[in-house]
């Protein structure tokens, strides 16, 4: 990871410089016009959040059944990223909703479930911070169930009557509007690569904390 970290930082930085320029130059959507441009980062942040949820779920499973320290570090690091990207997803959605729906907030199935999902991972972090000895395993269980909840959040727009756009919007975008589809893919790739970088930085922090604990124990002996 050390060898690819710096080149990856350069690539991600270039992508995040290019993305807003491409978004500004993209065509307006026919009904929502300018405000639809929020969509490019809004969708991409949920992609990044989904990637972080998957990492947290798998790492929590590995930690719970194998006891791997590295898996635990990955789980806590990715749980934090879920909260960070979730906050931006909810915030950008609220701004979009203000124009598209006329309200800042709507108790819509997708919006409410996404909020609950972010709260589950916020709970994970609180358990880790304030749960005391053994909280890692309790938090791992929360990580697994949080990850298990995410497919329901994704399908909520198809299963319930909601005002949030359905999953078919993304499925047909490639045919209807290839330019927007490519831009969404580009932004999503940038966000997923950013997730990899942030995850690496956070895992390093957890590794250092673990080393610090070992040093304290060695000093006491």
């Amino acid at each position, binding site marked *: 990871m050390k060898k690819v970290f710096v080149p990856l930082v350069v690539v991600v930085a270039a992508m995040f410089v290019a993305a*807003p320029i491409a978004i500004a130059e993209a065509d307006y959507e026919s009904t929502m016009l300018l405000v639809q441009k929020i969509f490019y980062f809004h969708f991409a942040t949920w992609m990044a959040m989904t990637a972080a949820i998957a990492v947290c779920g798998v790492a929590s499973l590995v930690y719970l059944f194998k006891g791997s320290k590295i898996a635990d570090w990955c789980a806590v690091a990715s749980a934090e990223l879920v909260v960070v990207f979730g906050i*931006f997803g909810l915030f*950008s959605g609220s701004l979009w909703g203000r124009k598209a729906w006329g309200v800042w907030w709507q108790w819509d199935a997708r919006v409410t479930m996404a909020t609950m999902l972010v709260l589950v991972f916020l709970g994970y972090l609180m358990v880790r911070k304030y749960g005391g000895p053994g909280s890692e395993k309790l938090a791992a269980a929360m990580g697994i169930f949080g990850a298990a909840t995410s497919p329901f959040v994704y399908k909520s727009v198809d299963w319930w009557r909601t005002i949030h756009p359905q999953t078919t919007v993304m499925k047909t975008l490639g045919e209807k509007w290839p330019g927007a589809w490519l831009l969404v893919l580009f932004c999503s790739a940038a966000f997923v690569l950013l997730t990899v970088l*942030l995850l690496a930085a956070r895992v390093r922090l957890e590794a*250092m904390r673990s080393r610090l604990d070992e040093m304290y124990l060695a000093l006491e002996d």
Partner: protein
Amino acid sequence: MLANAFFALQQQIPEGFAPVTGGPQIEQIPAAPLVIASYAFFLLLMVFYLWTIWRRIGKVETEMHALERRQAEKR
């Protein structure tokens, strides 16, 4: 007929406030501040998050150096 009466009632100008002239107006919420706020918030959030990681790593490093010194003194 009821609709006509309702429409006629709506045409009467209430006292106190300045009336709309030139037909019905539709309120518009400007989109640009919302789009700018969304992207600016993302930038600020990332800068803040990176700063918290950097600060936490710095704290742990400081503590590690202090412990290394204490270990060296103990020897």
